[in-house]
């Protein structure tokens, strides 16, 4: 029941807002739908936590510890982002940067995007997952190009082509997987595509085929995760779209893609009995971390800056999943959570900052803290959190990941640390000069919505000090699910 609501609400929202998205109340409606989604997600979560796994519609949909927590996260961030986008879009509309049509598009696509992500998370059918992922891409392409500026068009185009191509590889990977599964599960019905069934028989699946399948899937979904060197669409898309979209792209879409990759990895590792997939993930992870860390030094645009930091963190997560094992998986899940919370809150703060300063170029943003302390501190705290300074939760996960890395991949630890140090200097130097100092910017017509920012940061802080036992068990369950042994 909750599940139906969960999926139907955003779709419905997409339709309605598609019709009336330009109305004055549209942003509030947007919030309303997101709220309903979030509540149903909570209900679903509590149910799964209470009664264990749950599968709907002839197993087409399947919810276990792993994806339910991502569902909850997605719904939550979706809600807060919609809260944030209320004043944001109003201000944009006042500045005349978006027309009524564009607002309609924005709101309906926003809901559609949520829907596709939720489907991608909850579906049990690899094919359907693919469809949903593609749909997620398509629904955001037009949001990236919302402003119709040359840069945004370019970004949108790159986003479209690179992700499109990538996702096609994923499709072929899915086909191969189906092909291998069919040998075992028989071609009638769709059971050969259902993850649960595949997972049950993963030991018998033909390794060679699955290996190839994994490569295609990795490259395909990896493109969406933004693993170097497939990451090139990411900074552009983040920088040029409206900030709420950057927030959800960074905070959610990447997670979802990562989720897909991990699901596949579980199957493949089960059949290959080799650590090759894991090592591939680690390789991608390290490469991303290092590349991103150095590219951070080239940034002038604040949103690009944080886009690259997203790449870096996705790299860390990929590395952790690649290492595998309960602790690493636990840490990776934790890191997914804290990263999406922190990063989205950062984008909220950045959104207001850019609107105040009227630019995204960092050299032109100064003295936020004097102009509006809340935004300034929000950005500062968020940045420190994302840089992995205690007492924020990011530190907790990075601590676990690093210590596990020392244990399992000692050679990789120095590389990681070096990259982290470089990234620290790069990001912090820039943010400090934005937050502190004298200011030039002006006040804004609409009060900034900072509840989301501090709600997120509060959660992250809490996770740094103390991870509630039930949450910990939940993570452990998920980690066990992924880690196999």
């Amino acid at each position, binding site marked *: 029941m909750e599940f139906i609501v969960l999926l139907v609400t955003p779709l419905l929202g997409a339709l309605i807002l598609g019709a009336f998205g330009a109305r004055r109340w549209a942003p509030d409606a947007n919030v309303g739908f997101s709220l309903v989604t979030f509540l149903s997600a909570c209900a679903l979560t509590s149910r799964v936590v209470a009664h264990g796994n749950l599968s709907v519609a002839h197993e087409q949909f399947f919810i276990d510890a792993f994806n339910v927590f991502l569902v909850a996260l997605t719904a939550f961030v979706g809600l807060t982002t919609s809260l944030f986008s209320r004043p944001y879009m109003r201000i944009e509309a006042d500045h005349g940067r978006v027309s009524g049509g564009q607002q309609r598009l924005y709101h309906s696509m926003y809901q559609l995007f949520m829907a596709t992500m939720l489907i991608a998370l909850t579906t049990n059918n690899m094919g359907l997952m693919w469809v949903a992922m593609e749909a997620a891409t398509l629904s955001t392409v037009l949001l990236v190009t919302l402003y119709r500026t040359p840069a945004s068009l370019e970004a949108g185009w790159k986003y479209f082509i690179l992700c499109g191509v990538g996702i096609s590889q994923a499709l072929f990977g899915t086909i191969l997987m189906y092909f291998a599964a069919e040998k075992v599960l028989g071609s009638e019905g769709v059971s050969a595509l259902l993850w649960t069934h595949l997972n049950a028989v993963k030991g018998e699946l033909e390794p060679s085929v699955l290996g190839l399948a994994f490569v295609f899937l990795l490259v395909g979904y990896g493109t969406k995760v933004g693993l170097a*060197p*497939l990451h090139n669409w990411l900074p552009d898309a983040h920088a040029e779209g409206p900030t709420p979209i950057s927030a959800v792209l960074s905070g959610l879409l990447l997670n979802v893609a990562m989720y897909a990759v991990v699901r596949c990895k579980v199957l493949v590792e089960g059949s290959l009995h080799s650590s090759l997939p894991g090592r591939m993930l680690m390789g991608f992870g390290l490469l991303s971390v290092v590349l991103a860390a*150095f*590219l951070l030094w080239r940034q002038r645009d604040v949103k690009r800056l944080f886009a690259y930091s997203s790449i870096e963190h996705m790299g860390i997560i990929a590395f952790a999943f690649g290492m595998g094992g309960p602790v690493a998986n636990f840490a990776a899940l934790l890191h997914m959570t804290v990263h999406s919370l922190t990063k989205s809150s950062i984008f909220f703060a950045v959104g207001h900052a850019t609107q105040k300063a009227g630019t995204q170029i960092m050299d032109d943003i100064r003295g936020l803290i004097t102009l509006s302390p809340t935004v300034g501190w929000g950005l500062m705290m968020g940045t420190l959190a994302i840089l992995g*300074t205690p007492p924020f939760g990011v*530190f907790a996960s990075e601590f676990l990941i690093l210590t596990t890395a020392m244990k399992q991949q000692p050679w990789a630890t120095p590389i990681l640390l070096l990259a982290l140090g470089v990234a*620290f200097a790069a990001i912090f130097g820039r943010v400090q000069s934005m937050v502190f100092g*004298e200011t030039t910017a002006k006040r804004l017509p609409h009060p900034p919505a900072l509840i989301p920012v501090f709600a997120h940061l509060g959660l992250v802080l809490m996770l740094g*000090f*103390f991870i509630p036992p039930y949450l910990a068990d939940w993570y452990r369950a998920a980690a066990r699910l992924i880690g196999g042994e």
Partner: protein
Amino acid sequence: MVGVAGLLRPWSIGFVGRTLFPLGALIGAALAVVAAIALDHPAEQLILPIGLPDLPAHLRRDGLSSVFLLLLGAASAGISIFAAGYFRRGEGTSPGLICLQYHLFLASMGFVLLADDAYAFMLAWETMALSSYFLVTTQHRIPEIRRAGFLYLVMAHLGAIAILLCFGILQGGSWRFTFEAMRAAHLSADGATVAFCLALIGFGAKAGLVPLHVWLPEAHPAAPSPVSALMSGVMLEVALYGMIRVGFDLLGFPLWWWGLLPLSLGLFSALYGVVFAAVQTDMKRLLAYSSIENIGIMFTGLGLAMVFAGVGMRSIAALTLIAVMYHALNHAVMKSLLFLGTGAVLHATGERNLGHLGGLIHRMPWVAWLTLIGVLAIAGLPPLNGFVSEWLLLQSFLLAYQVPHPFINMLLPLGAALLALAAALAAYVMVKFYGVIFLGQPREKTLQQAHDAGVAERLGLGLLAFGCLLLGFFPSTIISMLSIVTQQLGLGGLPANNAPWWLFVPIPERQSSYAPLVFFAVILAVVALAIYGVRLFYHQRIRRGAAWDCGFGGLNSRMQDTAEGFGQPIRHLFQPLFAVVRHVPDPFDTKPTYRLEIYDRIWLGLYQPLDPLVRRVAGKVAWLQQGRIANYLLYSFVTLVVLLALML
């Protein structure tokens, strides 16, 4: 118990306002007392249900942490009272926020001292760095201060990374990150060595050990004075605590030659710091460099203690370690006192540049006389406290010839010579510091309006000055307290001796003794007698007149030595250490000016090049991203092909 006291501290953050500082001071004093009482109790543990799920936060109070808690509490008590008066005038961030950050800083330092597992330690450690960073950047409108803060935080972060790695090695395969596990772990010699070096880097970076010191002279002057006092007086000692904790507690008994690293680095820092202090023109920078010197002295002692412990001369190692901790206590008190003094001066005159100060002893007698105590103490003059620890350190240095390693035992006593040199230079620096600020004629007209510090500030200064005397006069008591720690660390305490309580004889068989009280009494007696005698036998007429000055007339304030002038001999003697830029006037200047800029060679040579280097690499990496979609597609294509090839 102390854990509870430590835990209580954050609560005081709750309500915002200036009234909190006295409360913080009270808690500080309470903490000091509790720590002093708890010192000889056995270690006690406390596990809090916070932190990571598998690793709840362990807190543990043993002798070592009590000593440093005592230090923290005592110093912070004085500083907080001072701060209560100091932050009256708003600067940069709002007082409430400062208050919060300030107490967070204190609390995190308390937790660092109590933490008993890697996670809790790192948590507290980084919180300490962060809160202090925010305090440093209180006046964030000034670019230099922003730069200083940035440098500070980056160095702190790198140090933290090193410490994290060190813990990663220390757990020695048990993969449990509590300190017990680390104590229990058996490391290979190499592993232990690496861990030790990492710890030295990590804690050295925080303590400002040369060459990791670059942030210190930038950050300490930038902060508001009470914060500078806390950073110099307490935070650096907390770093020292970390070093002792790792070196003597977690690593078990060190290899003897490890000691040579901190020993040599420490000696170098001591000389380097004091020499740079001598040429500074900014009073807070001067003090910052003098902090580097003192940290150098402490690390020297630490290294020496390690050498002794390594070769099995336990009791002497204990003596040396005691000297180190004693010096930590002293430095906490006297450096805080001096920084607060500068703070008062800064508030009264708005000047940090020595070139514009002078003659303040007339305008602000309280500050002047109280600061004088600190100056004499830090110059290492008997019978004040600074002398005692240096005396102890020299004593233990003189025992180093017994080290059973042929060449080393010849070199070690030389350390004593260098230490003596550093101490003498410190006196030079302090005479410059005090003389230029408080004595002579005011170098600016505005100084005439300078006013003495408020009551709260006087009280704070007074407390710390009193601490100097206390620590100076009762060495035997302090030592017996500190020897508890060394016993708990397994070094054994000091040999019992039957000397009377006022006589201080650390090593009976050597009969080297020191009795500050008698000493002081005699001086007092003589002075009193002299004054009395003069009054008795002769008149005491006094006439005030113009200064004689060999009959040169027209004396004005510009004829006194400037700070640069006073440092000139040192600059000449240690020329190679400095990178000096002179701005000499040409003969036809109507208003000739002569300016001198002195740079730190280490900064120029070691740190300056880093930034361009990283940028260059970044530039190389950026070549990958030329914005051409075809290339990007090519990347995906190649990746795909390569991975497929891997799979086949």
